[in-house]
Every structure is written in structure tokens, then in C-alpha cells.
């Protein structure tokens, strides 16, 4: 029979090779002040994104940047995106236009509608000829009829930026999205992400330990899934450093989904180990684990295969907006299958053998004393 467990050092080595570079790039994130390592989207950093279409042709990104710099928005980025509806320009700017706690009064035109108040007719006091109402034009921008398009703000800082862009490059005739995220949300998200991953890991550790009555299985499963988390975050730290791939608010969702799913294969193997320990009682633990691994190998791969199939379809055809999310899931699921087979169970064997040796040593020392 093929000896998987005997090659465990190679598997651990391979896991080391794929996690350590990632880990280095993850750690680069705080030490390089955000220049290398994970690249965060505006969900985390705060910022404004507009995706707009210019009627008179797509301007040069550098020229757009210059206009933004004139507006004191120096830390901006501009890229041209393709969509079925034509070329759009995506502007990523510092957060602008969010309403502060107390709505600041905006100076507008001073034409006054001059309404009047009177006792309501229902009270019977009415009947006064209303000569006092002066016909005055409305002072507020009249609401436009509902259309598919959304509008950029016309007042405040965003209004100035939009006006400057239109002055330089001609009218903006379509806006596909406009999003502003303040810095408060961002700080929340990073703390929240760590909390979620911790809580998820603790939950799985507890559940496996309770179900298998063995804390060693719980810990082995936990190590395997932390391996997956590090692999995924590490891959994105590398992608972020070299290709500027940004992680967004959904990234942590992918992490938790991976934590929940990657343990599925581990559970299948552990379940079989538990069954075989009764069936083949007396055999060495490592050969029981090896046997169980080989028996369940096919289904471990097949169950991941179905998920990989659906995720690949989403990755290729699901559109750009969820691509990072789906890619994270895909990497996590593949890593999860690997770590379940090649890390969790071999780790269990290492632990068991160490416990056995210790027990043996205690036994011999006890005999020696006697």
C-alpha cells in the first residue's frame, strides 16, 4: 500500500515552502507602511470611487490626475475600464462628500419662496383672500424624474470636482458607480476581520474537539485551516505587492467560508480514522491513518472538485466585481484539500507517536525505579 504518512516530512516541507514566502509578504504590510504586502481597497482605507463616462471621448489618465491634483486630491488613482457600454474612467480619490454629523448649511441662491401661514380652513378661521403669496421660483434644484442613471453631487467638494472634470474633458454623460467610504469604517473592518477569523477558528476547534472527543484532532484541524488562511492571505499579499490586487470587505467573508469548508475534508478523514481504530484495533496508529487517508482520498478530491467547478465558472464568467472574492475562495478550497490530507492527519500521527514515546519513556523509567 502506498505510504503517505511516511512521506510526511516532504508534505510539511512543501507547506512550509508555500506559507513562509506569503507570511513574509503579509508581515511586510505593517513594516513597509503599506507600500508592499497586502493592498487594501477603499473599504479599508477610506476613499471615493467614481466610475464615469465622458461624452467626448476618454481622457488621458495623467490629465485626469492633474485635474484632481488641482482640486487638492493628490493621492488619487485613475484607470480606464472596459464595459459593454464603452470605456469608463475609474477615479479613486480620498474620501470626499460624506456628510458630517451636523449637516452643514450650504449657501445657495437667495430667492425666497415666501410662503405664508394661516389658520387652517378646517378650523373655520379661513376665508382670507391670499394676496400675500408672491410667485417666486423655487430655490432648490428640482428633482429629476427617475432614470437608470445616477447623478454625481452638484454641491460641496464632490460638486467642485465634477465641475472641474467636466470643464476639462467635456460632459460626463453616465455614471456607473459612485462610492464614498469614510475612515471610521475602515478601522472597524480590520479589527472585525481579525475578530471573525479568531472566533471562527475557536468555533471549529471546539466543535471538532467535542465531536471526536480528542483535543489532538481539534488542534490538528485548526492547524490545517490556519495553514489555508495563511496561504490565501499570503497569495494576496504577493499579488498586492506585484500586481496591485486589492482586497475588499468581502475578503474576510472568503476567509471564514474557507475556514468552514476546509475542515470538511479533515472531518471525513478523521471520521474514517475513528472508525478504523475500532475495526483494526492493535495496528500501529500511523498505518491506520495511512489506510484511512487512502480510503477517503477519492471523495476528498471529488467533494472539492464540485466546489472548484462552480467557483471556476464564477471566476471566469461572474464579472469583475467579485473576482477577488472568488479567487480567494478558490485558492482556499484547493489549499484546504491539500492541508486536510497532507497536514492534518500526518500531524495527528506525529502527535500520537510523541505521546506514545513519552508514555514508553515513563514506563521504562518506572520499571527502572522498581
Amino acid at each position, binding site marked *: 500500500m502506498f505510504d503517505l504518512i511516511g512521506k510526511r516530512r516532504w508534505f510539511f516541507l512543501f507547506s512550509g515552502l508555500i506559507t513562509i514566502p506569503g507570511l513574509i509578504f503579509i508581515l511586510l504590510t505593517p513594516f513597509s507602511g503599506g507600500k508592499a504586502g497586502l493592498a487594501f481597497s477603499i473599504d479599508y482605507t477610506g476613499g471615493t470611487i467614481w466610475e464615469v463616462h465622458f461624452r467626448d471621448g476618454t481622457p488621458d489618465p495623467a490629465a485626469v490626475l492633474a485635474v484632481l491634483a488641482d482640486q487638492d486630491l493628490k493621492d488619487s488613482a485613475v484607470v480606464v475600464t472596459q464595459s*459593454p457600454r464603452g470605456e469608463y474612467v475609474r477615479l479613486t480619490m480620498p474620501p470626499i462628500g460624506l456628510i458630517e*454629523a451636523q449637516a452643514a448649511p*450650504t449657501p*445657495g441662491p*437667495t430667492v*425666497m*419662496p*415666501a*410662503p*405664508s*401661514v*394661516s389658520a*387652517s380652513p378646517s378650523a373655520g*378661521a*379661513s376665508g382670507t*383672500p*391670499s394676496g*400675500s403669496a408672491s410667485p417666486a421660483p*423655487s*430655490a432648490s434644484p428640482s428633482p*429629476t424624474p427617475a*432614470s*437608470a*442613471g*445616477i447623478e454625481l453631487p452638484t454641491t460641496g467638494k464632490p460638486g467642485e470636482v465634477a465641475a472641474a472634470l467636466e470643464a476639462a474633458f467635456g460632459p460626463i454623460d453616465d*455614471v456607473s*458607480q*459612485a462610492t464614498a*467610504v469614510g475612515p471610521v*469604517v475602515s478601522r472597524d*473592518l480590520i479589527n*472585525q476581520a481579525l*475578530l*471573525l477569523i479568531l*472566533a*471562527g477558528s475557536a468555533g471549529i476547534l471546539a466543535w471538532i474537539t467535542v465531536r471526536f472527543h480528542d483535543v489532538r484532532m481539534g488542534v490538528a484541524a485548526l492547524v490545517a485551516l490556519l495553514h489555508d488562511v495563511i496561504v490565501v492571505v499570503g497569495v494576496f499579499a504577493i499579488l498586492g505587492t506585484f500586481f496591485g490586487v486589492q482586497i475588499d*470587505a*468581502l475578503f474576510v*467573508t472568503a476567509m*471564514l467560508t474557507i475556514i*468552514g469548508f476546509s475542515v*470538511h475534508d479533515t*472531518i471525513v478523514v478523521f*471520521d474514517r480514522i475513528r472508525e478504523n481504530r475500532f475495526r483494526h484495533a492493535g495496528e500501529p496508529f500511523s498505518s491506520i491513518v495511512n489506510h484511512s487517508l487512502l480510503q*477517503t482520498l477519492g*471523495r476528498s478530491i*471529488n*467533494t472539492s472538485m*464540485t*466546489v472548484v*467547478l*462552480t*467557483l471556476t*465558472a*464564477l471566476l471566469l*464568467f*461572474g464579472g469583475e*466585481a467579485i473576482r477577488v*472574492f*472568488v479567487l480567494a475562495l478558490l485558492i482556499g478550497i484547493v489549499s484546504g484539500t491539500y492541508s486536510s490530507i497532507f497536514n492534518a492527519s500526518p500531524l495527528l500521527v506525529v502527535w500520537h507517536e510523541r505521546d506514545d514515546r513519552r508514555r514508553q519513556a515513563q514506563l521504562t523509567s518506572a520499571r527502572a525505579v522498581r
Partner: protein
Amino acid sequence: MRRLIPFLIVAVGLLALAVDLLPEFPRPSADPPAYAETRLGLDLQGGLGGEYQALTADGSAPSKGDMETIRTIIENRVNASGVAEPVVQTLGNDRVVVDLPGATDQQEIRRLIGSTGRLDFVPIPTGTTPPGQDQPIDPTLPALFAGSEIDPGGVSPGFDQQTGQRTVNFKLKPDGAQAFADYSRANVGQYFAIVLDGTVVSAPVIREPILDGSGQISGDFTTAEQRRLVTTLKYGALPLALKELTFKSINATLGAEFLAASILAGLIGIGLVFLFMLLHYRLPGAVACFALVYYALVVYAVFRFVPVTLTLAGVAGFVLSVGMAVDANILIFERTKEELRAGKTITTAIEAGFNRAWNSILDSNVSSLITAGILYYFGSSTIRGFALVLIIGVLVSMFTAITVSRSILRWIVRRPWARRAALYGMREDEFTATAPRGRAREAGARV
């Protein structure tokens, strides 16, 4: 019990179909009557949305009651503005999330939501012209009374037949009515201002004394201005100031593109899973595919009935859940093959396959529920949508992947045509397709 299960499956299936297809399937709701509906999130149908934080003066966490008041007031304001199906929810300790599918005018909406709504009635001193609409008021002017003196039930839009002007009727509570009566009696011809958050909403002239607290503001309002004034008077002040944390607007065309892309991707993904199951597991694979279709119909029915707001991530979660739902069947079929190779008949092998795989299936699904539950409990609104889809998917799949495929397989393997090794992807010599009789049948029932 076992006899009842096929009926249960058919009943649930028919019910799901009804919810999926009928345009007006009622769901429990107080008033007005509600119907099952496919609710799409902002990113799939376009619209406006924002997240707001309530700020207390001393920085302490706002009370649950205050948050609920804020939620209700914002909901009322937005409803009154004519946006269809707004969703206003509180999140965590101090957040309010507002989603307005289909809305496009962000300036108007944001003014409605973000303004604290501290409403004051401010007399304008004799001889001064009142500031115009949307102008700041001189903050040193004392207010006659606050917006809390307005009786919300007495505020309504109206129309003056004689002048052809839109009007807003209002009614004051006793204290306010007394104050206004005293003031208006002495100040006919003077202006007073209705001030919202320090900005003038309307500054009418007092034409006659208003003695019983019922008054009417008339002027050259547009419909929108009239509606805004009604909303302001009626739903008044938020107990706390709001800070805008995020605001997003998404074009409906873009949303439609996202929706089309995710439906296409979903269909391709599910198609690939079908192909895989049919090629690899043959007859049981076909049963699993049927169970998957059933699963999709039931999950969609649950989405419509709850209703769950489907976002881009939610649709991805649903497609992912299809890939996960079939996993239970894979575990069962692999185990069944093992049992067949161990010499069991097909009937007993299938029963053993289901029973032995159950532990792993339950443990796996619970671990998914744990992480999805954590996401739902702690997550922000986008994350919660995804988590809810995953939770529903896992729960429904426990029913369909096990009960539905088990019942169908039980029925199928009793047919003579179904007892061929090739249908199970097995070799003839691994396959013992004898009909279970006597002791074998009992054994099959016991396992």
C-alpha cells in the same frame, strides 16, 4: 414515518414551486399584506445606499431605544419621499444602514437621511427679512418652541383651490398651540421660520392669528418641496446626530450587467457539477442532480419567502452552496461503492452508505454553520447577506441531499432495470444485484 417522507418531499416541492412561480404568494405580515418576492440588492438592481453612525454627546453607546427611534424616523422620511421599498436596518450598537434600490437622486436622499432633524419654530424680529430657503438662520434668535410640539397626526399636504397653491397643514400640541396663539395674535404680518438643523426650511408670513394650534402653510411649493416640508414636520427630530460613514450609488444598468453575469456563471457552474456527477456516479449521480434541482427550487423559495436580499456576493454564495450541497451525495455514493465492493447488495449498500456517511455530513455542515453564523452575527450588511444565503443553503441541503436523494434511490433500486453494475460505475464482479428477500431485506431495513 418512512412512508410519510415521499409525501413530505412532494408537498415541500410543490410549496416551493408555488412560492417560486406565483406572483402573489402571501407571507405572514401584519399590515399591509406582503407577498413572496425576489429582492435584489443595490449592486444587482442599482440604487443608493449608505451607512450612518449615531453620535452621542459624550461618546457613549446610544441606547437601543434611540437606535430604534432613529431607524423608524429615517424609514418614515424615506418612505415619504416616494422611494419604493427602502430597507432601513440598525447594525451593531450605533449603526444604521439604508438601502434604497432604484433611487437616483442622492443629494435629496442624503439630505433627508443625514439631517438630524432638530426642528425649531423661530420668530423673525420685526423689520428684518427672513433668510431664504436653505439659508442658515441667525443662531442667536430664540426659538418659540421645538418640533416636538407638533402633533404628527395633524400634518398633511393640501391644495388651496382659490390660489392654486400647494399647502401643508399642521396641528400643534396644547403647549405649542398656546405659545403660537399668543405670539401670532400679537405679530400678524410678521415672519417666522421653520428651522431644521439650523437651516431654514420655510419662512412663512403670519396672515392671521392661529388660536387653536391648527395652521396651514401655503406658498409656491413644488411637489417635492411640499413633500419635504410634510416629512420634516411629521417625522421631526432624530434623538442623536448622525455621521455618514459610507455612501454608494450604483447605476441600474451596471446592476443588470452584474446580475446577468452571475446568472450565467451560476448556470455554467451548476452545469459542470451536473456533468461531473453524471459522468462519475452514473445513476446515483442523476439522482443527485435531481436532488440539486429540487434544492435550488427550495432555496430560491426560501429566499423569496423570508425575503433575503440577494447581492452579488449572495448569488456567489448560492452558486457555492450548490457545489457544497452535492458533497453530501458524493460522500454517500463513495461509501455505497465501498459497501458494494464489500459484498453487500445494492439495497443494503445504499442504506449503509447513507447511515455511515451521516456523521461526516453532519459534522461538516455544522462547521460551515458555525463560521456562517459568526459572519452573520458580527458581519457588516454585505457580509450578512452572504452568510444568510450560506446558512439557508446548508440547512436546506441537509434535507435535500439526504432525504430526497435517499427516497428516490430507494425507489429506483427496486426496479429491475436499475440493477446493472454499469449504472453505478462498477464492474460486474463487484456488484451483487440480487433482489433482497427474506433475511436480506430485514438486514437492509436494520442497517
